């Protein structure tokens, strides 16, 4: 089937079989290998991306379901000059990654949650990190990183308001 995936604001016209899952289309057809595939059964969350603003498992969606729908992957987090996203800075500062396999999934999970609610509380973040698996650092540094990014975001907002 002929579809167009819109990933990080770039259009990727593709010809895919209906059975192609979104994760494979992103990695193999679009060449966006930042999205990782772990379990391929919706458990590990390494393949989490934003589809129409919602964090979803890209192994549990078909590429043909995403024709014309805005998709955001970990490659779309950095700013136009390549500067890291506040979440990426926070993961580095809190040592929220070790081998890095689960990191793109956690980043997109957190990016989706922060887009919906920039004031994410500690309890919500603790609940959120249960969505994905990490086998290196454990969840505590990841939880701290997401909390730090949420706090930095709020401080940044308030800073800007003050300067106006």
């Amino acid at each position, binding site marked *: 089937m002929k579809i167009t995936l819109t990933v990080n604001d770039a259009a990727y016209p593709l010809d895919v079989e209906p059975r192609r899952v979104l994760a494979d289309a992103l990695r193999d057809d679009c060449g966006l290998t930042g999205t990782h595939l772990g379990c391929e059964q919706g458990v590990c969350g390494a393949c989490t991306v934003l589809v129409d603003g919602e964090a979803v*498992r890209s192994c549990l969606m078909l590429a043909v379901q995403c024709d014309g729908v805005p998709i955001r992957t970990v490659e779309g987090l950095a700013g136009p000059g390549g500067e890291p996203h506040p979440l990426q800075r926070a993961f580095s500062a809190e040592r929220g990654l070790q081998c890095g396999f689960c990191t793109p999934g956690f980043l997109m999970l957190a990016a989706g949650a922060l887009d919906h609610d920039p004031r994410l509380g500690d309890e919500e973040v603790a609940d959120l990190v249960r969505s994905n698996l990490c086998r290196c650092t454990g969840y505590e540094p990841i939880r701290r990183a997401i909390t730090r990014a949420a706090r930095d975001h709020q401080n940044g907002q308030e800073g800007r308001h003050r300067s106006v």
Partner: protein
Amino acid sequence: MKPSAFDYVAPRTVADAVDALAAGAQVLAGGQSLLLDMHLQRAHPALVADINHVPGLDELTASDGTLTVGALVRHQTFESPGAVPGPLGDLFARAVVTIAHPPIRARGTMAGSLAWAHPASEWCALAVALDAVVELRSTRGTREIPAGEYFLGPFQTAREPDELLTAVRYPLLAPDTGVAFTEHRRTGFSFAQVAVGAALTVRDGVITEARIGLANCADRPLRAHAAERTLIGAEPSSPAFTMAGEAASTEDAAPVPEPYADVDYRRHVIAVLVARTLREAAPV
């Protein structure tokens, strides 16, 4: 593994969708169970009908004391207690956070859970406890089945393969109903070993109505009728709730052994969890 090859259609009307089902299609709504089963090669449909583009199926309406949940209403909709009026919304909000994780809840649907009929499904247990009605449509017409007669076993329902589950209807709960939902599982990632939902009405100091739903306490979702009978006319008290828990565990439940949870263990958990859920549901 990858899904095996299939043809894909995206009907734009319910009529087109049921035509596809008549041609042997499997329904793709949230896809969080179907695609999983296709990855694991437990399902290999020749045709998949993606109903996400059918207008109207995403509607959630409450009128004349009835809540109607369309086939495309996602789990996450119920995370806001205000999405559904009254204690029913409170009960759904307490239950939904025990279902999988936020990214799964963003896609998966309540109706899809009822179509899949996993014995550990929280929604299925609530459907039987709350006297929900399942609406099924096919090229032969529309029929409605009470949830109590709909579940036949693990992943088995009264739905014919060519029938589309278009909506689930629930009677709204009276404003003075107390509700609670509790779940026991091995880890945060596990399916429920036991889950219990309860709705209690207390008038003039005695329990006048009790609804208890049990998930993963048998090969299908159960309503704990024996436990409920012990409660009617009783004062809401810890001994009464303990007795109801015992009745649910010994008379209602028919637990099957699972790794890490043999039958004796599960009966114990059921008794404890039912009593705990009732204590929490009891209006103060």
